[in-house]
Every structure is written in C-alpha cells, then in structure tokens.
C-alpha cells in the first residue's frame, strides 16, 4: 500500500543524501549536483502533497494543484540557479584554477 507517507519518506531520504553531498564534497560541481538532488527531493514531497490533497474538501476551489505549481516554479528557479552557479564555477576556475570549495575562502575572517 503506497501512502502519502511513502512518498514523504522517499523525499526525506533523497533530501538527506543530497544534503550529505552538499556538505561533504569538495568539488563545486559535485556540490551543485547534490543541491539539485535536494531540490528534486523537495519537489517529490510537494507533488505528493498536491496529489494527496488534490480534491480535498472544504477549501472551496475544487481541485488543489498548488504543490505542482510550486514544483514548476522550483524547477524554473533551479534551472536558473544551475546556469548561474555553473557560470560562477567556471569563472572561479579561470581565476584560481581550482574549484575546491575548501580553498575558496576569500571571506575568511
């Protein structure tokens, strides 16, 4: 029996795997990829909710697809983010010949 909880647990697991990657990888591109995984996890959760509450009574406006709409916006912003972030990574690489985030610490105290 697949319940809402199944999707939520799946989203949580994927999110945490992405989080681990984002917090532990040294390669900036890898971090970016991990962040994309996290975003996907969030999207799964949102869409699951949207489906679960699609015809939830009492709200007054019939079908509820807010979760899906949110997912669309997240995908949009994530695409923009990926483009800008990758441009930045390339710019940093050109200037410093490294994309190891451990060494990109200009803001250090």
């Amino acid at each position, binding site marked *: 029996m697949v319940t809402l909880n199944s999707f939520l647990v799946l989203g949580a697991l994927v999110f945490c795997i992405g*989080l681990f990657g*984002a*917090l*532990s990888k040294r390669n900036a591109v890898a*971090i970016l990829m991990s962040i994309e995984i996290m975003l996907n996890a969030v999207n799964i959760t949102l869409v699951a909710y949207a489906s679960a509450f699609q015809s939830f009574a009492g709200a007054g406006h019939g079908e509820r697809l807010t979760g899906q709409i949110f997912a669309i916006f997240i995908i949009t912003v994530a695409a923009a983010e990926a483009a800008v972030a990758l441009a930045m990574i390339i710019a940093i690489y050109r200037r410093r010949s490294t994309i190891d*985030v*451990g060494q*990109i*610490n*200009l*803001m*250090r*105290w």
Partner: protein
Amino acid sequence: MSPVEFVPVIPLLPLVAMVIIFLVTRPLDIAAQRRAGLRPTGVSGGHNVGGATAGHEQAETHGSGADHDEHDDHGGGHGHGGVTTFWGLAGAVVAVVAMVGAFGLALAIFFQFLGSPALQKSGYTVHLWNWFSFGPLHYVIDFRVDTLTAIMLIVVTGVSMLVHLYSIGYMAGDLGFSRFFMELALFTVSMLILVLGANILVLFIGWELVGLSSYLLIGFWFDAAPPPAGSDLPYPPPAALKAFVTTRVGDFAMLIGILMLFVTTGTFTFTTLNTPATYQHIDQFTVTVAMILIFCGAVGKSAQFPLHVWLPDAMAGPTPVSALIHAATMVAAGVYLVARFFPLYSQVAGPQSLEVVGWIGSFTAIFAAVIALAQNDIKKVLAYSTISQLGYMFVGLAVAPTDATGIFHLFTHAFFKALLFLGSGSVIHAVAGNQDMRKMGGLAKYMPITAVTFLVATLSISGFPLFSGFFSKDAIIGEAFTYGQANGNFWFYGLTLFTAFLTAFYMFRLFFMTFGGRGGAFGGFWGNERQYRGEAHPHESTWTMTVPLILLAFPSALVGFWSINSGFANFLTAGIQTYDNPLFDPLTYVGVAVALLGIGLAWLVYGLEVVPARVFTSNPVGRAAYTVMINKFYVDEFYGWVIQYIALGLSHGAELFDTYIIDGIVNGSATSVQRIGDATRRTETGVLQNYGAAIFGGALIIALAVFIATGAFVH
C-alpha cells in the same frame, strides 16, 4: 555734604589712576621704550631680534640675584640702568596725585569723625550695589566707615601716598615702571576695599585682592634669574607663588569660619554680626570655632606662625612694596580682621578664641624675633621684625578689654616699619642693590637723612621712651600683665617682655651694622667710610625718596602721644576708656629697662664692638642654636617635605589611580570585548560548507529542543 559721604571716592581715585595707566600711559610708555630701543619690538619676532636685544635684557632683568655682577657698575639695575620715559613718569604722577587726593579725603573724614562723637558711635554706611538676594540673605556691596576704618584709611592712604612718591625715585629706569605703579594702585584699591567693607563679603573680596596685588608685586621682577645655589637671596617667582598659596591656606579656614557665621546668623553685615543679641539662639561653641577659624585667615595674612614662611621670601619684591604691603598695611589686615570682630571675640565667643589669638601672637613674636637675631639680609631682619610686631598686635587684641591696644600698635607700627623699609630701600639703592649687612657699615656719613630717619624708626620700634613705639608696645606689655593678674596666665607678659629685649637688640644690631660701627662718631652710632665694608659707592638718595622718609619720621616719633589720656582708645571705641597713660605706670619702666638693655647689648657688640659677636657662636650650644636660627627652625624644609611627599604624593596617587585602576577597568572591558570578538570571529571560516553544516546542525538542535519541549518523544 560732609566728607564722609564721598567715601567711595577714596578707592575710586587709585582705581581711576590704575585704569589711566593701563589704558593710556603704559601703552605709550612701552611704545616710547620701543622707539628708544630699550625694549624689543616683539611683534616682528625672529631670532635676529632676540639676538639684537640680548643687551637690553640685562637692563630689564632686575632681581637681586645672580645677574648683579653685570649691573653693579651702574647701580644694581635699580634706577640707573635705564631711562624713565615721559609717559612712564606721567603715569606715576597721575597715581601720586590720585593718592594725594585720597589721603586728603581720608584726612577730612578722619577729622570729621574726630569732631563728631555721634558719628564715632554710629558710623556711616553707603550702599553701592547688589549682587543678589535670596529672601533674607543679602549679598551686597556696601562700604562702611567707622572709627576703626577711619584710622585704617589714614594709614593706608598715607603710607601708600608716600610709597608712591618714593617709588618714582626708587623704580626710576626700570622697564616695568608703569606696570609697577599700576600694580601699586591696584593694591591700594584692594586694601581700601578691605578696610571699607561693611560686610565680610566685601572684606573677603578686598582680602583676596590684596593677596593678588601682593603676588603680582612680589613677582614684579618675574624674569629674574635664580640666585646662585646656597645663597639665601630671595627669588621672586617662587616667593610670589609661596605668598599666595600660603595665605590661601589661611583663607580657606577663614572661609569656613565665615560660612559658619553666615549659616547660623544669615547675614554678612558687621553691624549685625557684632551685636551679641544676634546670637541668642546660637551655641557658643559654634561661634568660638568660627572665630578661631576666622583668626586662621589672619594667621595667613599677617604671617603668624605656622603660616609665617611666606613673608621673609616676599622680600623678593621691590623694597617700596615691602614697605607698603609687607610691613605697613596688608600684613596688618589680619589684625584689622580680628579687631573688626572684636565684640564677637570678647563678648560672644568663648575665651578660648582670644586665648588662641594670644598664644599664636606671643609665640610668633618671640619665634620671629629669635630668627631675626641671626639674619644678615637687611630686609629679612625687617621681615622677621614685622612678623614679630604683628604677633604683638595679636597679643594686644587678646589681652586687652578693647581692640584699641592692638590697633594702636598697628597704627604706630605702620609708620615706623614703613620708614624702616623705605630707609633700607634707600640704603640698598645706595649700595648698588646689595642687601647683605656684612657688606655695609658706616653709611651714616654718606646718607645722613636716611640714617637719622632710620634711627628715629629704630628707637621707635625698640620702645625707647616717648617715641611712638614706646606708647603702643608698652601698652601691650602692660595689658598682658593686667591680663596675667586677672587670669593667672603670665606667659603672654613674659614672652612679650622678652621679645622687647630681643627686638631692641636685633634692631640696633641692624642699625650699627648698616650705619655705624666701631670708630664712628657718638660711640659708633655715626659711622663713616672707615667702617664701610662694601665695594659700591654709596650716596644719598634723590628727593623723591628722602622726602617720604622725612615725612614718615614725624609720625614715627610723635603719634604715640595721641594715646595720652586714652585719646586713641577713646576715639576708637567711641568713648569707652581703656588703659592708663603708660608714662605714669611704674610697670612701664620694666619694659623700658628691658629695651634699654637690648639697645645697650647691641651697642656693646656691634657699636663699640667691645664684645665680639663670636662670643655667641663659639661655644657648641651657641653654634647649634645659631644654625637652627639661621635656618629659621627648618619650618620651610618641613613644609617642603610635606608638599613634596604628602601633597604631591597623594596627587600622584590620584593620577595613578586614574591611569591604572579606572582606565584599567575601562580599557580592560574594551579589550575583553575585543578578545571575545576576536575569538568568535574565528568561526567565520569562509568555507561555505561549514556554514551549511552550521545551519542544518543548528536546525537539528532547535528541532530536537522543540521535540523535547513539546514532549513529542513521549507520545
């Protein structure tokens, strides 16, 4: 319109003279001096000007110190070194004219009082202006003339007038000639305010202002070079400072006394304060303490022990200043103060107050006289003599039933001591600025007028019969005896009597060492060139200096006769007779005998020189005593130690407390904030992942906290 109604004009005259000199003649004088090349132009400045005027500096630098070697050939810098410009002289003339006017008015007021017993009783008050009032508390500027003030007016304006005249000769050629007359006029104004004040407020104003004038005039040669090490020559800059600060110590106590009186009675006015009825509801102890504190002011101003140390040093000022301020008038202000409050001292306050006055006075009298025995500086001897005589005045106030005894000595002393100082100034002028009596001697032949007038004053101060000092001083000694009979305390009598002997001795020692010596005419009284031990060429002074000497010699010799039949006491106390004519009191002749003994001993030692002075110092006891005496009982050293180690030590302590404790706390807290900031700053690694870990870790911790707090784990 009677003269007394014009009394505000008396201080106004010298004030106007001062303002005229300050605004008109002195600037013109300075301009003239610049044109004549006597004074650097100053404005253009630069090293070249300083170098070019180096020669003139010596002319400007007077003092009595180390620079004398350059001056000795032209008169020690006094008088012959420079030129008095027309404008300088004009200013001096203005001042003298003002003083003649003031003296004339003072005389007129005096004679008006003399002729009107009603006025003697009532006095005359004139309201000038208001400072402010708070309900019944009035702070007003009022003048009041009564018999005491009338006498003080005569003394102040008379001596001041003569000193002004004398100074024209004495200060001639000094670059600060105009400044001198300005400051002299300022002093006269201040002293007149002091004696004219109708309340303590005005008196205190005058009291402080004479302190200022004294400070300025002692420091008149402010740019003098310090005397060579080991010399006891006075040095103006520290002397002026010392005079002001030492008297301020007394003023502090006096201020507290004034405050006590004011707070308990609510008034400053003398007439109210001196009415015993004012104190009906006031504790006698309070008044006693207040009066003793007020007397402390007198101790400072009148240079009584233990605040006497400033007066000998004050001799660093020009000699006319010593005569006017530090002999005749300002130092007598303390006596005036006690006399002013005499009804309070004698009737309201406890007997302790006048006992304190008597003890301080009598001790100071003998203490200063002992020091005077060993001094060789002619002005220092006179300075200690002044201290001693002021002590007499206080004893006179302490022992007599009225203030007439003490005030009469003040009155006579003003004349003969001014004469002594002016005479010594004439001598110093004649011997090129030298003040050491060991380099004088036999001067009588060179300067007969000075010598004769000086002798008159010396006889007077020694209490030689029929000279004025005899009447005033022996009256004090007599009253002290009466006091002893009444109270069983003969100390005042004994001390004053012995001091009379010492006074006669050291004054004639001074006279013989200066004017006489073995081989002079009249048994050494009238010396000549053979007794002269100095190098300069002595000469008699100009008429502006000798005329004041002659004019002062008459009152020095004669004013004593006013006391016959209690004339003076009658006048001063408006009818209360006090003491008998000393001429007919056998007790008087004890005093006379003692004085003659002193004169005789001095004659033997310094006039005839049959007993060498070495006799006194050749034995160990004498030598030890002499060392102590010449070092003035080490009082200066003691005060120096107190200031150096206690006052400045505490001050340094305060400074260090500020620097290390208060600022330590302030800077310490600032530093610790900085340290904490520095430590926490280290968490900002600049590595994004650290921040990410912190965010999620933090979120977890918060979530955990929320779970625990809401009990989510329990359910």
